[in-house]
């Protein structure tokens, strides 16, 4: 085969990979464009601040926004301390290559691969049936109080689901902190925790933030884990207690798309809801990408 043919074929295959790339970029653009085009018109202050009306064929999505925010705030409160402290343990406390550390790392990676629906089953079987019913039996004389789907259980289920995200991002940030900084802290008489608290953590804020944002984005998006742990089809009131059910944007999309009595009437609302959901997750992820690239650049600089 002569040189010209080799060049030609090489170029053709290279172009094919470029085409794959372009297809994906185009797909992202088309999804965003399509949803924005159809959803933009229905987006208004009123849409964001009022409740659904008339069998959810009219009105806004305020309860779903409220529920989403409430849910991810609870989730964040649970997952960030846990994830950050797991990462601190792995990087700052444990012996680098001990069996235990390897086991923890493996568990985290595996946890990241467990399907969302399995987390949903776990939330039901563990948090509601075991913990919730247990609390009810112990403190409320068996009266149904915590042993039912609730925003607390949904948030904790999501916290487990997003734990790997926070751990991995935090660890990456801890890895960037130069060893010398730790030695300086020790040489000044810091205890291990003081070293972590005063020297390492302030430098890892970017990574922790990235992990938190990605976790929140994931929490905003996942439906399967909250299907049986607390998400409500429709609620006439806003949840104010931890043991209440809640409306949430992603489940609202599912409900409107699959169970609407009149899909044509619902469709504009549906598009607007999807647009809000997409804007939220994409903004979060873009922020995470920007912060992370800043972090990576610093990592290259410190090497």
């Amino acid at each position, binding site marked *: 085969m002569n040189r010209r043919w080799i060049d030609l074929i090489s170029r053709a295959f290279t172009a094919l990979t470029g085409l794959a790339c372009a297809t994906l970029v185009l797909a992202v653009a088309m999804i965003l464009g399509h949803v924005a085009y159809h959803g933009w018109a229905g987006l208004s202050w009123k849409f964001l601040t009022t409740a659904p009306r008339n069998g959810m064929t009219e009105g806004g999505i305020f309860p779903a926004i409220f529920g989403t925010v409430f849910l991810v705030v609870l989730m964040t409160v649970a997952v960030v301390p846990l994830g950050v402290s797991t990462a601190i343990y792995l990087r700052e406390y444990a012996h680098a290559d001990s069996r235990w550390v390897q086991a923890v790392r493996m568990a985290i990676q595996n946890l990241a691969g467990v399907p969302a629906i*399995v987390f949903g089953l776990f939330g039901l079987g563990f948090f509601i049936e075991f913990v919730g019913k247990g609390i009810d039996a112990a403190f409320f004389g068996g009266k149904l109080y915590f042993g039912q789907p609730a925003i607390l259980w949904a948030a904790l289920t999501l916290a487990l689901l997003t734990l790997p995200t926070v751990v991995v991002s935090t660890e990456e940030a801890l890895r960037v902190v130069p060893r010398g900084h730790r030695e300086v802290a020790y040489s000044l008489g810091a205890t291990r925790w003081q070293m972590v608290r005063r020297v390492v953590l302030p430098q890892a804020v970017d990574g922790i933030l990235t992990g938190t944002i990605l976790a929140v984005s994931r929490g905003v998006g996942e*439906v399967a884990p909250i299907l049986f742990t607390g998400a409500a089809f429709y609620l006439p009131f806003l949840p104010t207690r931890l043991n209440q059910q809640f409306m949430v944007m992603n489940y609202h999309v599912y409900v409107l798309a699959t169970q609407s009595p009149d899909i044509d009437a619902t469709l504009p609302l549906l598009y607007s809801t999807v647009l809000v959901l997409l804007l939220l997750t994409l903004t979060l992820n873009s922020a995470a990408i920007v912060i992370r690239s800043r972090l990576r650049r610093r990592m290259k600089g410190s090497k």
Partner: protein
Amino acid sequence: MSRRPASERLIETFIRLSAGVAIAALVMIFIFIGKEALPVLTSPKVREEAGLSKLFLPQPPAAGKPARFSWQPVSKVPKYSLLPLFVGTIKVTLVSLLFALPLALGAALFTSEFAAAWLKEIVKPVIELLAAIPSVVLGFLALIVTASYVQNVFGLDFRLNTLNAGMALALAVIPVVYTVAEDALSSVPNSFREGSIALGATSWQTAWRVVLPAAFPGIFAACVLGFGRAIGETMIVLMASGNAAVLSWNAGHPFRSLSATVAAELGEVVKGSPHYHVLFFIGVMLFIFTFLTNFAGQMFVTRLKEKLTGAR
């Protein structure tokens, strides 16, 4: 000896304990889902209706009729054959991988080997944004928007079919495959490439003969992890599959997957009924299956790292 305050010791205890949470979670998931699934094997009452033979072997729908595989858990005589669900799951997974693997691997190859630095800076985050799109949104698009197009273009009998759902599922699988594969390709040291270019190879030849073989374990891991993601994904399939538990390998037919079955039915079953336990049994299978794919994926990533650092 130490004058550390109690608060510090408390925090350190928390740190040490927290590391165990991931392991505990994994074990507890297995235990608590397994606990609810166990009656399928142990309870005589549940086994009578939904024992292993009922789940996996063909059953006659009525006395004297030929045995069939069917999933009809709420009919007068409940039937719990998992085979239609297995077939549905595998079918949609294969379709999705058919789209996802060439696109994701091609894109990974392009960004790591051929694209200019500035182009890579743009393209990579955009593809990673795909991971940010909630699966319920992809499911919605597949259900409302693309279904009719796909039906018309391919002349299919059903609006909600495996092809359409598989394409939407591919969008969820692509970021997983792309990220892992891109990582693997970029971890191949530049000296490999320079050696090949110096021998007069084109950049495509270099990518094909040098970089891809060197990164192979990582590429393979990407495929395995993508497979695991496809098997477990729920919302897209739930919304776009048509949810018909028919035993058919035809990509133009509707189907029902294991995960979607759990999502669709668990909300309405009576707790403690055979149906309830079978759904948890499906959960255990999904858990074990994705656990194995993850484990394999990690193993290949580790092997890649060993291979590349050993070769350096």
